[in-house]
């Protein structure tokens, strides 16, 4: 997995609540058996018209935001389906950090498996960051995972919380499965006990 340490980049404002995973990557793109190549279809139905032409009003189609690396969004980002194609598409587009008042549980987990940092902040702080993002390409925001801070283009600093284990994995690009396999003895022992206590499983 790619490491995430610090990021300074353009933030795209998406002031909409309940951005669901069907919006992030519609179902017709779930037929792939790969993880790559989904960035072009990120937010497909909001981004392109019926003929496949770009909808100029959509934020990521605006010149200022084509190279965005951060999204600032409304409450409950990533709700709906468990499809990991959503973070795959976000990452493939080039976005490494999403900031919102809250995230849906499965999407939040999926981000950490893909080197994306989801940051939940109180609404009033997201409002400030949203205004900063609306300034366009010259207003770059900085995220420092180690320090757990976001710095606006004006130098205003916000602190954020992140689970210590997930932070450790993200900063070091660690593979979850490899880490779990180091605890194989615990799993073996659990299975042996469960085979006695719940043999029907």
């Amino acid at each position, binding site marked *: 997995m790619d490491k995430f340490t610090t990021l300074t980049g353009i933030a795209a404002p998406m002031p909409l609540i309940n951005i669901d995973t069907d919006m992030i990557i519609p*179902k017709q793109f779930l*037929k792939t058996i*790969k993880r790559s190549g989904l960035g072009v279809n990120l937010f497909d139905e909001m981004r392109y018209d019926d003929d496949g032409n770009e909808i100029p009003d959509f934020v990521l189609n605006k010149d200022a935001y084509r190279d965005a690396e951060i999204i600032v969004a409304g409450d409950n980002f990533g*709700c*709906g*389906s468990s499809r990991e194609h959503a*973070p795959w598409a976000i990452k493939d587009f080039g976005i490494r950090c999403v900031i919102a008042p809250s995230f849906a549980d499965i999407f939040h987990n999926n981000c950490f498996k893909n080197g994306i940092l989801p940051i939940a902040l109180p609404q009033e702080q997201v409002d400030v960051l949203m205004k900063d993002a609306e300034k366009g390409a010259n207003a770059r925001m900085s995220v420092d995972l180690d320090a757990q801070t976001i710095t606006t283009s004006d130098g205003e600093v916000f602190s954020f919380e992140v689970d210590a284990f997930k932070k450790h994995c993200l900063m070091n690009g660690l593979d979850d*499965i490899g880490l779990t396999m180091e605890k194989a003895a615990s799993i073996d022992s*659990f299975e042996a006990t469960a085979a006695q206590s719940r043999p*029907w499983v």
Partner: protein
Amino acid sequence: MSPKTLYDKIWDAHVAHEADDGTCLLYIDRHLVHEVTSPQAFEGLRMTGRSVRAPDKTIAVPDHNVPTTPGRENPENMTEDSAIQVAALDTNAKEFGIHYYPVSDVRQGIVHIVGPEQGWTLPGMTVVCGDSHTATHGAFGALAHGIGTSEVEHVLATQTLIQKKSKNMKVEITGKLRPGVTAKDITLSVIGATGTAGGTGYVIEYCGEAIRDLSMEGRMTVCNMAIEGGARAGLIAPDEKTFEYCKGRPHAPKGAQWEAAMDWWKTLYSDDDAAWDMVITLRGEDIAPVVTWGTSPEDVLPITANVPSAEDFDGGKVGAAQRSLDYMGLTPGTPLNEVEIDTVFIGSCTNGRIEDLRAAAAILKGKKKKDGLRAMVVPGSGLVRAQAEEEGLADIFKEAGFEWRLAGCSMCLAMNPDQLQPGERCAATSNRNFEGRQGRGGRTHLMSPAMAAAAAITGRLTDVRELM
């Protein structure tokens, strides 16, 4: 011993390792797999030379992509990309030696209907699947939730998940439901009350007289949509109905093992003095037949209400509501029961079980769908379909002018050819009304099977109580 919730008890029985910071390895008893979210996980195993740790606890079935029309055993009758995904599942199931129900098997169906039907899902288990509606299995008092593909690979390789414990929420539905009100109305009404983020960070236990009174099918409908309320999982404590449902299923324990299982299952309830982080109570008598009007499952209103306006809301919901109204093509103030529809979809993991088909057929018996309307019934599994044929329900649907399809997810998420056209409006028994969910530009109103049947007859959103 300190009092525990049902969730606490199941959690404690599955912790294989706990780190100092509370991060746990939770052991997984059942891993359900389908064709859309698993290919990359199996590929990951191959690339790292890993194997499936517990193939006997891993069950695969194709459901999302498969056509629901005859001849689908032949890959030429699928779109090429769908056929590739289904073929990949065939290959992966064989290569890794996991249980498998191919499309040619009568037991094939939606993974969340097949699991309980075959007795894979049992009380007190941990059940995961790369699908958010895994919450369905919580109806058995199993801790069940959706996971992403990286976690699918993690479970395949280690039979565990890295987890931190959620908080406990109790949702109590007191008293009796009124006529025409169903499990779907309960679960939608709860989401209407909590919002789609209200359950974030929680596992919900549904309880109360109205929940106890539900059949297992109804309880599965309620738990299925726990995810739509944002919760990690929904649970209902097992009782005699649960045990009766499980007994004799192909993969349920038998003989002495059944007795041993029952001894434990009977301890699976929340202790009287257990601590809850949040409690929500609805009166069963206050719940009406409901429909959704917008593009979020929280946009729930009684069928007797009018389309709201954006000004009825606060904060970020104002903009979202206006966007929903524009997308749905609805004018504020319009009575919901005057909204005309083009399509009726009865099926999905929310409402594709036999009881759902019985409820819809009871309304449709001897009646016809409105002319010009497209209506389809997609049973949740081949066995549900066979039972419905045996009970004469299929004939009722066909005589009413419904298409009688083969089992699959179908128009719930419209990955297969069953889709809405832009602007088409659908009365659906599924679980999500998101923009584009049932087809680009398609408009979805969620409701119970009986309400969808009523809408098919009148051609508009309809209060089922008028037809009872």
